[in-house]
């Protein structure tokens, strides 16, 4: 563990903790990393910055032994090494916290950690060790709790503890804050700063530039698999780094000034649904109203009923009464997705693969999934293939989707490009109301900007938009009003600009690890608005 003996941190005479020299990795058809070099000093918090598909993941997978480089050298504390598998990486002292957690919901924190260890220790020893690590870094986590009752932030702490138990000298964090509340992000940063002060180097992957400025000492920027620049984030601005990242000038989202909203287009009135399954969330008395031209943001920490909320709006789950959901005056609560779409309600669920799109289908076929009736593909009871293809082509061109054409499979697109296609597929249907979840999840800055701009433009044409996102910055950037979803209930609607990020953070559940306290707090906040 990081002890005081490691106070040689940031001593420039010591060999770098990790050095990559000319690392290259080629996949069929793609050069994922092209001659990339990188130096991480002891105790340094080093940002790895790049768009989706820039090669960040490939690079860290090679450091963690999941992939083997085709060429180039890896040096660990000055010594050339080969890392054949993650176990070898851990043995060297490299830990990694993945973006997606691998936890068993029904087991306790302690059991989950025990399952992930290379060496076996007794439960009691392990628990003592876990508590020591928790104390050392001021992390709050109860080893006896069942994972399914924990918040995402707490789940992430399990992964961090799991990595810290191995006394890492280098900790790789892959997009760690995408699911945290602002308060949790601050806690995480504190932990990481303590770790770094103890001599552990941190390789921090992110595309959230203000976080990198707040946390990191050095940033390495990748673009298209190549090294672009190394810079000191404290001397850069978000904009300058973003431009290095995407290799072009970044456009601000253009919003017409002095916008006025039309009449109510889309609303829920007392929408309640019982919870489905052990890990589902019940929706409780959900009410909101969105006017033509208005963008309503729904903030909240993952797992507070966002999926249930989305599915009940899209029609995948039916409401109990028709008038629980109203579109342009028509009660649609008991209508399925196809009928709702016919009336002008389009939806984009959070999951791209397997929900919003089918990986093995061509883009034309993926267009048929939702646009077949609205865009007039149906002809004599059959789907007209050339119209479907033309529509997919139009989406590709309008939204600058990087794809060979309508016959490419959705699975062959990068995440950001597929998201652009899906958003484009719905937006070009000119819906009366659009419901979107996580529109820019895992999407690079360039594509995210384009998607947000498209949503803003759609609203300007008179569409009522609901955006569910865990990325608060995103919501504040382009929404008109904001609600918070917590344990299946919505807070009061706030106007963006009249609400501080701290207030929203509290609403999102600053104490949300404990369900009862959160309910109490939510009720308190509802009763006594800040």
């Amino acid at each position, binding site marked *: 563990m990081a002890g005081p003996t490691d106070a040689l941190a940031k001593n420039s005479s010591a060999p770098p903790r990790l050095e990559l020299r000319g690392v290259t990795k080629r996949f*069929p*058809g793609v050069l994922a990393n092209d001659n990339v070099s990188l130096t991480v000093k002891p105790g340094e918090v080093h940002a790895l910055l790049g768009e989706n598909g820039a090669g960040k993941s490939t690079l860290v997978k090679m450091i963690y032994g999941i992939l083997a480089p085709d060429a180039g050298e890896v040096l660990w504390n000055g010594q*050339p*090494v*080969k890392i054949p598998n993650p176990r070898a990486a851990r043995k060297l002292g490299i830990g990694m916290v993945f973006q997606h957690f691998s936890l068993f919901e029904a087991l306790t924190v302690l059991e989950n950690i025990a399952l992930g260890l290379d060496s076996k220790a007794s439960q009691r020893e392990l628990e003592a060790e876990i508590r020591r690590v928790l104390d050392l870094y001021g992390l709050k986590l109860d080893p006896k709790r069942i994972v399914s009752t924990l918040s995402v932030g707490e789940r992430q702490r399990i992964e961090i503890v799991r990595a810290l138990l191995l006394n890492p000298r280098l900790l790789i964090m892959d997009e760690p804050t995408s699911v945290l509340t602002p308060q949790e992000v601050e806690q995480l940063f504190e932990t990481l700063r303590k770790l770094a002060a103890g001599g552990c180097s941190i390789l921090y992957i992110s595309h959230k530039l203000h976080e990198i400025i707040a946390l990191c000492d050095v940033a390495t920027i990748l673009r298209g698999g190549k090294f672009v620049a190394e810079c000191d984030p404290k001397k850069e601005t978000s904009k300058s780094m973003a431009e290095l990242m995407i290799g072009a000038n970044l456009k601000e989202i253009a919003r017409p000034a002095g916008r006025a909203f039309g009449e109510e287009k889309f609303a829920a009135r007392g929408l309640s649904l019982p919870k489905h399954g052990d890990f589902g969330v019940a929706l409780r008395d959900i009410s909101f109203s969105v006017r033509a031209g208005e963008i309503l943001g729904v903030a909240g920490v993952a797992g507070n009923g966002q999926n249930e909320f989305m599915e009940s709006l*899209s*029609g*995948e789950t039916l409401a109990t009464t028709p008038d629980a959901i109203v579109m342009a005056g028509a009660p649609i609560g008991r209508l*399925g*997705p*196809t009928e709702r*779409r016919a009336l002008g309600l389009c*939806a984009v*669920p959070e*999951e791209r*693969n*397997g*929900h*919003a*799109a*089918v*990986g*093995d*289908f061509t883009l034309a*076929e993926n267009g*048929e*999934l*939702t646009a*077949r009736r609205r865009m007039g593909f*149906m002809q004599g*009871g*059959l*789907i007209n*293939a050339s119209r479907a293809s033309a529509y997919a082509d139009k989406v590709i061109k309008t939204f600058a989707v990087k794809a060979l054409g309508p016959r*490419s*499979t959705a*699975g*062959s697109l990068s995440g950001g490009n597929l998201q652009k296609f899906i958003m484009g597929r719905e937006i070009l249907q000119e819906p009366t109301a659009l419901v979107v979840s996580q529109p820019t999840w895992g999407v690079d800055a360039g594509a995210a900007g384009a998607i947000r701009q498209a949503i803003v433009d759609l609203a300007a044409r008179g569409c009522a938009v609901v955006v569910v996102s865990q990325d608060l910055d995103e919501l504040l950037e382009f929404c008109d009003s904001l609600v918070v979803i917590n344990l299946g209930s919505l807070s009061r609607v706030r106007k963006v600009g009249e609400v501080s990020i701290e207030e929203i953070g509290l609403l999102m559940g600053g104490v949300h690890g404990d369900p009862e306290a959160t309910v109490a707090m939510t009720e308190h906040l509802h009763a006594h608005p800040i």
Partner: protein
Amino acid sequence: MRIRFEERREPSKLMQVVTPVAAVLLTMVIGAVIFEAIGYDGPRAVKEIFFTPILASYKWPDVGRKAAPLILIALGLCMGNRAKIWNIGAEGQYLIGALAGAGVAYFTENMQGPWIIPLMLVAGIVGGALWAAIPAFLKTRYRVNEILSSLMLVYVALQLLNYLVTGPWKDPNGHNFPQSAPFTQWQSLPKMLWGTPFPPGLFIAFALSIVFWIVMSRSEFGLGVRVVGEAPKAAKYAGYDADDMVWRTLMISGGMAGLAGVLEAATQGGQLNLGFPSGYGFTAIIVSFLGRLHPLGAVVAGIVLAISYVGGQVAQTVVHVPNATAGIFQATMLFLILASDVLVRRRIRIVKPQPSAQVAARVAESAT
């Protein structure tokens, strides 16, 4: 040197066509080796099984007669398997279809008219569909696995056949044989149609394969079948109800099996007896996979399997191989086609060790 399977970015179109052909060819090679090893003339057995039925024109009627039910049943199974709704009980639906047709024949024994045959065909389709509706009901209502329920219903159907032909429907003039009364001319179809060596069922199968092709590739329902199988959540999002798809695909595949059954009864037997069950319903599962779950593929695969049936009989008489020979070849083929699917999604790459001595030295160093 290591051999490694690498995921392809997109499933290979070429491999989708090449692998079934390769599976058939490999089946021949493996079959020849096996039969040679156990003391038969292996290459000769393969020749009799796969080539004699093609080369000898007097075998064509037999091939056509076997291909018709295989293709008809497989068309329905292609659809269900695409939706990942596994109807293993087509054999039972085939029997019930034949029984329903024979039921119409039983009640129209003393009647005449060209309306009887269409009525029998409709009864066969409805019978098969209703038999398949049982697993559909059990699955949608009680979440009973359709693989088990549909399979078990095969044996119920068998018992029903045994009961009817030894009991109520037994031919009073049949010298006490367990068989139904022979169908009259108004209840029978010709064995060969339009001067070809092929039965009407084969032409119906060809026509329906085109219909199924269009439905699967271009209809809204066909899109639903494909989405439900690939991504159930996306299907729901696209407006398809999963239970609805279970009902429809099971009843369509049941109806197709029923149609195959009643056609077989009306064309070939002219009556039902204990020897009527043939295993077509099970073999059609192989046909659907060999045909890549594509309606046109099912036509080709149905003919290949029909050839192996007919050839199996030829080989029994000529090379004296056992009765199970055709079954062994068919099972080998299914095994190989399923195994070769790996190549559609993955490519084989031979990973050569890095030649540089420098790297080798580094490996040795890090290993110590």
